[in-house]
C-alpha cells in the first residue's frame, strides 16, 4: 500500500522526464553522434597502441576486449550520468530551493524520478542498439557468440547501483553551490577527475597496481569500472559479489552524505537565505 502510494506520487515525474527527452530528441541525437565519434577516436588510439606492441594482448586485454571496454564504458557512463548538480545549483542560485521546504515531500525523489524518465528513453534508444552492436562485433571477431545472460543481468544490477551512486553523489555535489560561488568551473574539473578515477579514461587494470587497488576502494570505480568489468566477464563469482557489496556500501554512504548536506544547507538557508 505504501509502495503503491509512493509510485503514484512520483510516477508523473517519470512521465514528465520521458516527455522531456522525447521533446529534445534532435538535441539528443546530435549529442549521441558526437559521443560515439569520440568512442571511435579512442578506438583508433588503442588500435595504434596494440599495433605497436609485440604481443596479441596488452596488460591482459586483447584488442577485442578493448573495443568492448570502450563502448560499454561509454554506455555505462551515459546511463549513469546524472544532472543533479546542475539542477540543484540552479535552484540555489535563483532561490527556488526555498520552495521545496514548504512542501511535505522529499527533495531528492522528485529529481530522481524525473531523471529515471530520461533514462527509460535512453535505454530504449541506445542501450539495445549498442549492446547488439558490441555483441555482433565480438561474434564477428571470434566466430562465436560471447554473450552471457548471467553476466548481462549482473551488469544491469550493477549499472542501476552505479546510477544511484552517481545520482546521490551529484546531489551532494550540487549543494556545494551553497559554499562555492562558481560551481561551473569546479564542475568541469569534477568530470575530468571522475572520468580518470573511475577508470573510464584508462582501465584501472592498466594502472600501477597500488594505484589500481586504492582506486578500487574509492567510490569512483563503482560508477563505471565495476559494471563494465562484470559485463566483460573479467570477475570471478566471489569478486562480483564483493564488488557489488562495495557498490551497495558506497550507495548508502552517498545517500547519508546527501541527507547530511541537505540538513546543513537547510539550516544555512534558514539563517541567511543565500
Amino acid at each position: 500500500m505504501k509502495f503503491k502510494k509512493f509510485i503514484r506520487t512520483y510516477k508523473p515525474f517519470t512521465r514528465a522526464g520521458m516527455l522531456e527527452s522525447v521533446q529534445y530528441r534532435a538535441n539528443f541525437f546530435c549529442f549521441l553522434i558526437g559521443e560515439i565519434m569520440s568512442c571511435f577516436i579512442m578506438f583508433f588510439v588503442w588500435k595504434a597502441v596494440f599495433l605497436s606492441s609485440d604481443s596479441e594482448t596488452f596488460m591482459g586485454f586483447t584488442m577485442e576486449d578493448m573495443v568492448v571496454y570502450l563502448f560499454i564504458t561509454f554506455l555505462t557512463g551515459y546511463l549513469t550520468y546524472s544532472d543533479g548538480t546542475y539542477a540543484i545549483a540552479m535552484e540555489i542560485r535563483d532561490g527556488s530551493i526555498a520552495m521545496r521546504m514548504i512542501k511535505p515531500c522529499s527533495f531528492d525523489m522528485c529529481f530522481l524520478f524525473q531523471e529515471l524518465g530520461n533514462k527509460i528513453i535512453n535505454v530504449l534508444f541506445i542501450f539495445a542498439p549498442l549492446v547488439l552492436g558490441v555483441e555482433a562485433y565480438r561474434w564477428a571477431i571470434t566466430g562465436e557468440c560471447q554473450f552471457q545472460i548471467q553476466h548481462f543481468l549482473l551488469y544491469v544490477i550493477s549499472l542501476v547501483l552505479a546510477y544511484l551512486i552517481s545520482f546521490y553523489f551529484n546531489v551532494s555535489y550540487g549543494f556545494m553551490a551553497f559554499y562555492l560561488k562558481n560551481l561551473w568551473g569546479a564542475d568541469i574539473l569534477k568530470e575530468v577527475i571522475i572520468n580518470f578515477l573511475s577508470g573510464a579514461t584508462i582501465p584501472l587494470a592498466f594502472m600501477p597496481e597500488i594505484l589500481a587497488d586504492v582506486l578500487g576502494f574509492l567510490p569512483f570505480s563503482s560508477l563505471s569500472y565495476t559494471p563494465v568489468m562484470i559485463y566483460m566477464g573479467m570477475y570471478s563469482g566471489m569478486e562480483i559479489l564483493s564488488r557489488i557489496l562495495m557498490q551497495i556500501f558506497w550507495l548508502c554512504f552517498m545517500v547519508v552524505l546527501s541527507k547530511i548536506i541537505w540538513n546543513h544547507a537547510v539550516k544555512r538557508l534558514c539563517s541567511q537565505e543565500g
Partner: protein
Amino acid sequence: MIYVNDLRKEFKKAIKEPGLKGSVKALFSPKNEIVKAVDGISFHVPKGEMLGFIGPNGAGKSTVIKMLTGILTPTSGTCEINGFIPQKDRQRYVKEIGVVFGQRTQLWWDLALRETYAVLKEIYDVPDKEYKKRMEFLNEVLELDEFISSPVRTLSLGQRMRADIAASLLHNPKVLFLDEPTIGLDVVVKDNIRNAIQKINAEEGTTVILTTHDLADIELLCDRIVMIDKGKKVFDGQLNDLRHEFGQMRDLQFELISKSDISKLNYKADLKLSDEDVKIENEKSSVSVRFDSEKVSVEDILSYTLSKVHVKDINLKDADIEEIIRRLYRQEVSIDEV
C-alpha cells in the same frame, strides 16, 4: 491560532566598495552591515480572521511571511501557529498550511498542471472524495480547465498564479499565507482570486494572512490590517479605524459655470495654507480641492469658493484610503499619531 511575539530578523549584508579595488578589499577584509529587516513585531491572529500586511517596498513583509512559513529562522522572538513552531516540526507543520509567493511558483516546472495536482493529492494525503469536491470548486472559481493539461512552464503569469492558489488550497489548509497574490494580474483574474480566497475563508474558516500593494485586496478581503515600515509595526487595526484616525483629508469638487472663473480662486494665498495642507487640481471647468480638514474647515473652503465664483455642482468625497496610506508611507503623518 497565530501568536507572534517580538519577532526579529537581521541579515548580514556584505558592504562592497565600488570597482575592482573594492572587490579585492572585500576579499581580504570583508565588512558586514547588519540589516534589520524585521525589528520586533508582535501580533495575534484568531482563527478565521483575514489579516492584511501592508507597507512600502522593503518594509519586511515578505520576511515576516518567510519566518511564519518556516523558510527563515528568526534572529530572536517567537512565532507559534496552530501549536507548531514552524522551524521545529517542519514536515508536519507544512501539511497544515498553504503558501503562495506571488513572485515565484512552487509548482513543478515540467509537470502538466493536472499531474501537479495529482502529486499534491498524494503528498498531502487528500482522500479521493475530498479531492474531487475541491477540484470541482477550484475549477469553478479559478477556471483552471482552459490550461489544466499544459505544463506549468508554459502558463502565463495570471494562469500560473491561479494554478498556484489552487495548489495551496487543495489540502484544505488551516492557515493560508499569501505574499502578493494579485501581483501583475488583470482585473478579472484578481476578482476570481479574491473570490476564491473569500469563499474558502467563509466555508472552511481558513485563517488568511496576505501581503499586497493593491489596496482593493485589503478593502475587499481583510478584516484587519497590520502596517509595517522599516521592520516595525506602525498600525494594527480595522481599516475603518485607519480611516477615522487619518480621516482628516477631504476632497471637495466644484463644477464652475464659467471656465474663466478658475483664475479667481487662489486658496493657498487667500486662506494662508501651505502646499502640504491643500492640493488643487483643475480640469476644464471643474476644480478639485483636497485639503486637511484639521487645518481648514469644510465651511471655510465652501464659503470662500462661493464668494468668489458661481458654482454649478458640488461634490464632497470621503477620505480616500489610498491617500491615507500614501501619506503614511511618505511619513507625512508620524508614527506616534497611531
